[in-house]
Each structure stands twice: as structure tokens, then as C-alpha cells.
């Protein structure tokens, strides 16, 4: 939630009776006298002074006219930093396409003219804050150094502290803003939000705000922002509603309300609100992209069961549905048992084949959100087809997100980010040890450089990362913390912590209550555990890296014995590495080149067991296992690919055939159903194979239908004809 307006214009920069007129307009607006403010701005819009005309037109939401007027103002006074800053703020308000980049350019130009221009630094800080960058705080601090009375900068610091889930610091920062100005409305809004988030209904702050500005809906909108980023969507929606009730012209708040209703699956009202924004000239990227996404839903199919709503793109629903439905059902059943609870509404899972569509769902949200995101009972995630094969394990992502649904529900959405993410990461490998993410080189580096955050501050690593990989490291750390708690205190203790967090307790309070120690003590003991657990990898990473490079070189030079020697020497110094050019793969290739298929298979079996998931490698393993007669193992290897990239006709054909050989007839039916669902070029062949699987599974009626489907396409298909006669003979 950006501060839309930016009230603090230096009237001195204008320095005329007109400048006084601008102050009057801003004052009227600031105190909620909107009709008076509008009349005032209309007057300014007719001004001969291009800057004042720009301010007037901007306030009246004539962005095109304002833009031209600002351009004229800057041309008339090229060295006026204020004009550029205000022009930049106008672009922030417009918020479409490249507007933020244009605004940043204008703020930087202003700083070239006046290197200590506080409002320009605030402008850059707001852009950084919009991107959840920690440097926003540094920029705000610099702005305050330039101008210690720059309330907006101080309010931004309060906002960032609260985004970091540090209400105490937020309270202090807000009070500093109030000391600068008793009319610091956003500082009061932060104080009100802290009270509301702590479920205190007797907060005095909103009354104080309304006494200054009786239509200051921005305060409710700011609260809405915090409730949403803390995953308390229903409450966030209620605050956005209050915001636009107080001031129907708060288009950003209206758009946010629409976006959040869409997140919770209330699409009709969302569309109505977003359309209102669009038609009234508020066409921010979030608004436009959300409307486009709503339009694209005609390309989706929805499948309902009593506990689930599954939305899949029509193009791939036929292949994905059986796998996604099965995992969705399995995850819900598992978590119901594990968390001793049942959800009060169906889980809605939306799967997007276009990553850009999924990205619309995560706009404005902190954290990585790269693969999946949960909004209450609604989960949105990338389809396997949204990324190159093998780049992500969709089933692991699904279980991760469904864990959020349960934890958010169990805690009534009162849970710190680190804890819900930590449990979700922990649950991924609880399903199967080869699921989830492995210890990656960034995590090894972070452990070696002691960059992990104290548990009490871990949320900051998710929301405002201070280095590029910190979000990923924070996921890793949170997951490891939950692993540690389960290992030391048992899984029931995690459940107790869930319960404790639902009582609105802070992380240090919960650690003390449930684990019997101060959070600092927990950090010490956890780090000792983690360092012991990762000692080999951390201490030998450089050696491993060098050895892996040598192995690759030897393999390329066809020096297979040398590759095997070096590979064997270093593989287990970092056994978790199963990404491209893993030592397992290189050793398997070397063994295969030397004709030792058994040893090659052993390497790839280890690769798969550790969590290797490149579909091509797993399919190669399966092919070798099949050649060696190890059919069950081959089927198991191919089954793993289903969890990574099921949009592969050849995979389903091969696995279906193996399943039939192994007498796993229902599994074979599922595989051949997937082939048919993928609308292959050879549909007749696919239907025939499905018919065979049905027959093997003693589902004769379905077998007959499938074989007739095959023959409808290819009436002269001899194999299908024989099967039809066989089926008729069996009747």
C-alpha cells in the first residue's frame, strides 16, 4: 500500500500566492473537506503556472493533462528538483506499466540537482518498499537525515517494521512520526493497525484520525494491507470495505478489495469492483492483470468434490486431473489426521500453465511466491507446464501449500510467516524424503558465513530480504527449525506451537512456553544442531566443487576411470547435490561408457533416492532398469516423474505398459487415461491401450467403450478389432 498522495509539498518551492493556493487545496484535502479541495484543485487546473496546473490536474485524476503540465513546468525550470519529485509521485499514483521506473528516473534526476532532496529519497524509498526491498529503510533514513521533519519517511519506517512483524519497533517509529506532526495520519493508522492485529477492539487511534480527517479511508486501507500480508484475508477485506465506504474515490483500496476477493474465489464481486476501477481511470497493473485473469477463467475447467474444488486449464486438465486430484485428496486426508482437524470449507486449487497468470495472483505479496501461494482456502500454483521439465516438483509444492491452508485455519491466521513456511517445508520431506528442496549451495554459504537470522527476526528474511538469496535461505532455515523441533521434542510439540500461536503470542513467547527456553538460547542450540548436521558439506564445499569440475572434465575427455575415481572421492562430501551435472549422473555416464550398466544404475538409483528429479535422467534410469529386467524398479522411477512433469505422453505409455506387466492394473488404467487426456496424435492407439488396461482391471464395460472409441477413429485398426471380438466373446 503506497501512500497515494504525498501531502508534504514544499510550498516554498512555488513561493507565490499560487503556492499558497496549492497549500490550501492540500489542507482541505488533508482534513477531508473533499468538495472544497476539488473546487480548489479545479481552480489550480486552470492556472497559467504549469506546475500548479499539473498539481490541479493530477488531483482531478487527469493524468494525461498533468503529465503534459509537469513536462512544461520542468522545461520552464530545469533545475527545480521539487517539480521532478512531484512529477515522479504522480507516476507512482498512476502505477501502470513502466510508471515506477519513470518515477525512479525522475527522483534520481532530482537528486542530481539536489543530492539531499528528502522527498526524492522518500520517492525512491517508496519504490523499494513496493518491491519489498530492505534498502527502502536505508533510503527513508537518508531522507530523514536530509530533512528530520519528513514525516512520510518516518511513517515508512514504521510501516516496514510492522511488515517485518515487529510491532514494538513499529509502534516506536510511528510515535516518532507523531512527535514530528500531531497530524501524521498514517502513523496513527499504523498504531490503529497494531491494535487491531492484536485483536484489541478499543483502539483510540481511528477516532483521532477521523477527528482530523473524517473521510480518511486510507487508514483502513493501510490496515487492510497489513491483514492481507499476514494472511488474514477476511479481515483485510473488511478493512478495505470500510476504506471505500468512508471515501468511495479510494480507487487503489477498491482495486485491492477486488484483488483480495478474487484471491478468495469470490470472483463476481471482484470483477465488479475491478471493472469500476478500470472504468474510472484507475488502471493499475494489478487491476488490469486481475481483470485479464478473470477473463481467462473461461479457459479453465472446474472439478468439485465435497472437500475440493480443482481448477485446471482445459488444455491439460485431461492429463493432470487424476494426479492432482489424488494428491489433493491424500494431502487433505493426511493433514486432517496429523493436525486433528477438519476444514470448514472445500480447498480450491488453481493450477496455471502460464506463469504470468500465476504471478498475477502473487502481485503485491511479500516473499518468494515463485511456485505456489495460499489465500485462506484458495491455493494457486504453477502447472508443471509453466516451467521447463524438472524445474519443480509440483506435488511437493501442492503439499506445501495445503499445509498452509491447515495451519492458517488452525491458528485463525495468527501465525508468524516463518512458522507456517517452516512447517510447510518440513511437511514436504515428511511425505517422502526425496521430495522438497535439498541443501543448496546458497544455504551452505549462509551457514558458513553465519548469516542465518535469529528466530525472533526470521520473518524479516521473508519480507524484506537484505541480500538476494535471503528469502530462499529463510525458507530453508524455517524448515530446518521445524525438523529440529520434531527431532528433539517430537511432532506433537509442533502442534502445541500451532495452538500457542493461535493465541496471538509472539515467537519468543511461544518458544518460551512450548520449548522452555528463551529464543536466544533456542538460536544457540539450533545452530549447533544445524552445523553438526551440515558439517561435511560446509567444510568440504570447496573441495567438492573442485572435484566435481575435475570429474566433468575427465568425462568430457572420455577418461572414464579418472572420472569415476574423482567422482567417488567427492560425491559424498556433498551428497545432496542432485541438480544439473550431479556427480551421480557423471559417474553413471562413466560406468555406462565402460559397459558397467549395473554400476551406472546404482548411481542413478542413489540420485533418485536423494531427490534427483530431472525427468530425462529418471527416464534413462527406468530404461536401463527395464533392460536389466527390473520392472518394478523401472516403474518406480517413472512414477517419480509423474510428480515432476506428467505432461509427457511417452512417460505414461511406458509406465502404463510396465504397470500392466506388473499386474498393477488400476495404475495402468490411470496412465493410459492420462495418454488419452493429453489428446495425442495417435488417439486410436491410446484408446486401445486404455481398453486393454480396463480389461486387465476387469472393467469390461469401460474396456468396450474405449475400444469402440478407438475403432470410431480408426475402423480398420486390427488390434482393436480383435479386442472388440474378444470382449464380445466374453459377454
Amino acid at each position, binding site marked *: 500500500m503506497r501512500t497515494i498522495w504525498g501531502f508534504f509539498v514544499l510550498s516554498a518551492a512555488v513561493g507565490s500566492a499560487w503556492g499558497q493556493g496549492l497549500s490550501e487545496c492540500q489542507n482541505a484535502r488533508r482534513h477531508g473537506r473533499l468538495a472544497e479541495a476539488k473546487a480548489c484543485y479545479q481552480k489550480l487546473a486552470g492556472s497559467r503556472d504549469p506546475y500548479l496546473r499539473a498539481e490541479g490536474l493530477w488531483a482531478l485524476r487527469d493524468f494525461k493533462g498533468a503529465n503534459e503540465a509537469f513536462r512544461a513546468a520542468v522545461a520552464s525550470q530545469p533545475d527545480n528538483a521539487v517539480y521532478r519529485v512531484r512529477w515522479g509521485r504522480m507516476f507512482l499514483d498512476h502505477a501502470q506499466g513502466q510508471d515506477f521506473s519513470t518515477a525512479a528516473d525522475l527522483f534520481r534526476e532530482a537528486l542530481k540537482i539536489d543530492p539531499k532532496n528528502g522527498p526524492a529519497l522518500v520517492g525512491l524509498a517508496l519504490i523499494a518498499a513496493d518491491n519489498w526491498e530492505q534498502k527502502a529503510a536505508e533510503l527513508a533514513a537518508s531522507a530523514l537525515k536530509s530533512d528530520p521533519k519528513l514525516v512520510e519517511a518516518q511513517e515508512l519506517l514504521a510501516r516496514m517494521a510492522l511488515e517485518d512483524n515487529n510491532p514494538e519497533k513499529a509502534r516506536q517509529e510511528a510515535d516518532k512520526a507523531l512527535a514530528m506532526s500531531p497530524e501524521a495520519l498514517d502513523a496513527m493508522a499504523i498504531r490503529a493497525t497494531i491494535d487491531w492485529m492484536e485483536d484489541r477492539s478499543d483502539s483510540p487511534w481511528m477516532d483521532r484520525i477521523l477527528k482530523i480527517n473524517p473521510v480518511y479511508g486510507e487508514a483502513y486501507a493501510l490496515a487492510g494491507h497489513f491483514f492481507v500480508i499476514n494472511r488474514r484475508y477476511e479481515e483485510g477485506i473488511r478493512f478495505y470495505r470500510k476504506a471505500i465506504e468512508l471515501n468511495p474515490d479510494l480507487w487503489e483500496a477498491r482495486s485491492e478489495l477486488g484483488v483480495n476477493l478474487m484471491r478468495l474465489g469470490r470472483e463476481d464481486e471482484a470483477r465488479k469492483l475491478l471493472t469500476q476501477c478500470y472504468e474510472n481511470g484507475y488502471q493499475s497493473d494489478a487491476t488490469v492483470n486481475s481483470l485479464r485473469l478473470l477473463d481467462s477463467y473461461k479457459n479453465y475447467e472446474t472439478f468439485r468434490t465435497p472437500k475440493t474444488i480443482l481448477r485446471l486449464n482445459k488444455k491439460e486438465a485431461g492429463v493432470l486431473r487424476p494426479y492432482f486430484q489424488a494428491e489433493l485428496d491424500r494431502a487433505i486426508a493426511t493433514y486432517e489426521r496429523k493436525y486433528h482437524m477438519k476444514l470448514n470449507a472445500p480447498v480450491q486449487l488453481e493450477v496455471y500453465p502460464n506463469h504470468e497468470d500465476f504471478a498475477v495472483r502473487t502481485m503485491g505479496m511479500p516473499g518468494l511466491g515463485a511456485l505456489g501461494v495460499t489465500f485462506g482456502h484458495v491455493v494457486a500454483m504453477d502447472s508443471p507446464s509453466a516451467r521447463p521439465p524438472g524445474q519443480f516438483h509440483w506435488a511437493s509444492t501442492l503439499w506445501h501449500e495445503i499445509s498452509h491452508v491447515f495451519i492458517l485455519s488452525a491458528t485463525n491466521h495468527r501465525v508468524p510467516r516463518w512458522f507456517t513456511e517452516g512447517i510447510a517445508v518440513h511437511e514436504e520431506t515428511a511425505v517422502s524424503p526425496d521430495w522438497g528442496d535439498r541443501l543448496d549451495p546458497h544455504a551452505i554459504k549462509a551457514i558458513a558465513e553465519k548469516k542465518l537470522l535469529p528466530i525472533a527476526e526470521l520473518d524479516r528474511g521473508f519480507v524484506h530480504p537484505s541480500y538476494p538469496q535471503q528469502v530462499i535461505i529463510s525458507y530453508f532455515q524455517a524448515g530446518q527449525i521445524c525438523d529440529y523441533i520434531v527431532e528433539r521434542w517430537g511432532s506433537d510439540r509442533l502442534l502445541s506451537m500451532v495452538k500457542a500461536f493461535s493465541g496471538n503470542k509472539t515467537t519468543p513467547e511461544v518458544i518460551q512456553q512450548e520449548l522452555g527456553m528463551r529464543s536466544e538460547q533456542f538460536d544457540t542450540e539450533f545452530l549447533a544442531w544445524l552445523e553438526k548436521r551440515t558439517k561435511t558439506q560446509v567444510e568440504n564445499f570447496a573441495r567438492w566443487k573442485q572435484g566435481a569440475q575435475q570429474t566433468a572434465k575427465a568425462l568430457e575427455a572420455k577418461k572414464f576411470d579418472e572420472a569415476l575415481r574423482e567422482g567417488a572421492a567427492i560425491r559424498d562430501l556433498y551428497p545432496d547435490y542432485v541438480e544439473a551435472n550431479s556427480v551421480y549422473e557423471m559417474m553413471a555416464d562413466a560406468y555406462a561408457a565402460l559397459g558397467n550398466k549395473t554400476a551406472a544404475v546404482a548411481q542413478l538409483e542413489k540420485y533418485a533416492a536423494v531427490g534427483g528429479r530431472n525427468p530425462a535422467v529418471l527416464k534413462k534410469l527406468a530404461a536401463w532398469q527395464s533392460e536389466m529386467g527390473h520392472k518394478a524398479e523401472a516403474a518406480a522411477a517413472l512414477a517419480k516423474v509423474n510428480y515432476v512433469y506428467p505432461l509427457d505422453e511417452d512417460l505414461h505409455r511406458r509406465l502404463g505398459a510396465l504397470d500392466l506387466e506388473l499386474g498393477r492394473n488400476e495404475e495402468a488404467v490411470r496412465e493410459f487415461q492420462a495418454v488419452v487426456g493429453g489428446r495425442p496424435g495417435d488417439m486410436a492407439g491410446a484408446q486401445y491401450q486404455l481398453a486393454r488396461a480396463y480389461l486387465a482391471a476387469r472393467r469390461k464395460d469401460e474396456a468396450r467403450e474405449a475400444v469402440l472409441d478407438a475403432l470410431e477413429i480408426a*475402423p480398420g485398426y486390427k488390434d482393436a*478389432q480383435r479386442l472388440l471380438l474378444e470382449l464380445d466373446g466374453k459377454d
Partner: protein
Amino acid sequence: MKFAIALLACAAALEAKTFYLTVAGLGGEPEYESRFIGWAKDLESTEKAGGIEGKVIALYGPAATKDNIKAAFRQIGSEATRNDALVFVLIGHGTWDGYDYKFNLPGSDITSFEISNLLDTFPGKALIVNTTSASGASLNQMEKPNRVIITATKSGTERNATVFARYWVEALRDPTADTDKNEVITALEAYRYAQQKTAQFYDSQKRIATEHPMMNDAGKGEGVRDPNPQKGEGRLAATFGLVRFGSAQKAAQNPAKQALLKRKQELEEQIDKLKYQKAAMDTTEYRRQLTALLTDLARVQADIDK
């Protein structure tokens, strides 16, 4: 079913010879060189084992020169009759300078105009599968009645190395390419298979597709991406058998089976007619009639195969 009938008619045509000429051009880099030669060799062996009477010539490596291509056409031309068929496959790099398409060869390149002239020396129907980069530019210059032209790209401006050839070769080896299950893989089936696999390749790799295969067998006009025989596209290609497996053609030569073959053809025509009426029929009634016809057809086929 029009095309199934046409295929029966083409059974006779399959008794004529098919000449296969495959040329793998200059790779430029060792990786491409070995890839192109590998595909050409695979194609050569598939065509030799393809069950269709004819002659297979493959030129690759230093032998893939313009002179050798001309010599191959001379040899084929001296043996071929108007009932015969030619399958000419070009694998490698192609270029287009805005006017001329050139197939890159060791020594002098060959232009699409020159290729078209060579094709004119062949008396029968011809299939040209130009799998090179920029091959789309050659389509208009080679099109003529009784010719099927397939290109890997839609125009001369798609200049990146292509993967279409890989899937063309695969199509002739993969029984799933035979979508109507008549045990003959036709040019149309192979094209659809390779086109779909090519699209899937780019889609799964999340790469922007730099090749869009096209086909023209009307002898004029532009190529089409998804030929639809109902609209007159791909009809010649649908009767152009490339490889054959099974025993489809043996029965046609057995006088004792003629009555059964006649009954089979009648049933196929009835099924074809019923399928055209599907949209206007009650679903259950359609399925009932279809089941009866398909069962009869299966029984007749079983008798033919005895």
C-alpha cells in the same frame, strides 16, 4: 472415410516403386555435422526396412554435393515411370537472402529453383521434405501439381537450426504415427506427428518456437500448418505411403478374399456415412449403430486375415 477408401486405391499405387533420396548437407560445426549425418543414416535404414518396393539413396558427408544430387536424379529419372513416387528429404542448414533459398552443401550450394528443375525430371508424384532452417522460403518455388511440399519453417526468416528432421525420422519408426491404424504411415500422418512433436519440444523447453512446419500439396497457393483434407488440404499427402508394416496389402492380391474385401469396403462406407450423421443423431442410437457396424467390420477383417 474418404481417405481410407483412397488408401485402398493407393494400394495399387504402392505396388509401383518409391525412390527415396535423402541428403544431409553441410553441418558447419561438428555437432551439427554428426547430428545431420545421424538423421540421414537413420532415415536410410528406416526406408530400406519400410516394406515398400523401391530404391533408397542417401548422400551425406563429403558425398552430399550438388553434382552427386544431380547424378542421383539422373539415375532415378532413368529408372522411374509415371506410376512411381519420389521422396526427397533435405536435412541441414538452409539460408534465404530475400530472393533465393539455398541448401548448404559441401562445395556449391543448391537453390530451390535448381531443386525444382531437378524435380521436374521425375515423372511421377513427389514428396519433398525440406527440414532445414529457412526452408519455408523454398515452398512456393517448388510447388507444382502432384507434389507434396513440407518445410520445417513457415518462411525464410526462421533461420535457427531446426529439430523437425529428428521427428520426421521418428515418425517413420513409431507405429503411433499411423493414426488410422491401416499399417501404412502416410506423408500426412508423418507430417502431423513431426509437427506435433516439434511444437511439444519448444513448449516443454519453454523456448520460443523458431520453426513452424508447413505443408502444401495443392500445387499452388500458400502452405498450411494444419492441413485438413475436408478442406482439400493434405489429400495427396494422405495417399502418399512412406512405410508399410503388417499384412495390409497381401489380402488385396488374393482372389479368394475379394467378396470379403467388398463387404469390408461397404461396411467402411456405412461407418463413414454414419459418422457424418453423428451431429444430427441421438447419441445412444449413434453408438448402437456404430457398435454394430464396427463389430461386423471386425468379424469381416478376421475372416480376411484367416
